């Protein structure tokens, strides 16, 4: 990757670790890298789980009143309340993964691998590692450990900074 001073750069803070919220950061990171930008991703709180070796991502209908699924030729709303029924979130997650496959959308594992291949820099939040008792052994190879100051230094030099 080019590192001359004209290279544009993007940084993002990744704070969410559900299947739906995992997409925006990885789609934007891989695309920006493909367009020649230097990209840094800072994974903190629930976003940190996206760096685990084994991903088992889920969606929930809870707190997501806009969620609709295409079923039986229409869009079926998913009321908040149904997430209390055992098995509903698991079913919604399976349904979402099936849709992802059917529509030719990349898996998160695939996008993460492409991000690493494209030299996207990944920083795992050290404080979150301590807080949730993760060790580097739980995580994929590639990310470096760092904190808020590490991110801020990158952000001050980036053309685009996103919080997701």
């Amino acid at each position: 990757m080019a590192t001359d001073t004209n290279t544009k750069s993007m940084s993002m803070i990744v704070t969410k670790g559900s299947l739906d919220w995992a997409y925006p950061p990885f789609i934007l990171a891989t695309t920006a890298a493909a367009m020649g930008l230097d990209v840094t991703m800072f994974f903190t709180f629930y976003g940190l789980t996206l760096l685990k070796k084994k991903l088992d991502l889920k969606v929930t209908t809870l707190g997501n009143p806009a969620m609709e699924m295409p079923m039986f030729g229409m869009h079926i709303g998913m009321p908040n309340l149904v997430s209390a029924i055992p098995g509903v979130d698991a079913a919604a997650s399976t349904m979402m993964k099936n849709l992802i496959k059917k529509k030719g959308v990349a898996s998160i594992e695939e996008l993460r691998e492409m991000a690493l291949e494209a030299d996207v820099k990944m920083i795992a939040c050290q404080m979150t590692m301590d807080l949730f008792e993760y060790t580097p052994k739980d995580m994929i190879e590639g990310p470096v450990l760092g904190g808020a100051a590490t991110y801020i230094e990158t952000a001050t030099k980036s053309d685009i900074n996103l919080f997701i």
Partner: protein
Amino acid sequence: MADQLLDVKGLNCPLPILRAKKALKDVPAGGTLEVLATDPGAVKDFEAFCRTTGNELLESKHTDNVFSFVIKRTA
């Protein structure tokens, strides 16, 4: 006829762009890559991709639900 052909039919955003970027690495400077896609979003995306990366979009066509793009590697 382009020097190389990339078929990303059936793939959705951002895969057409990511695969094209990868394929362009194997195209010599001045050479061309033809991309076949079914993602309608690819039309605007390949324009933006080429403008940002400095490659030249020689052709953007739409026939029978297939979008085809010819990119000249100039970057």
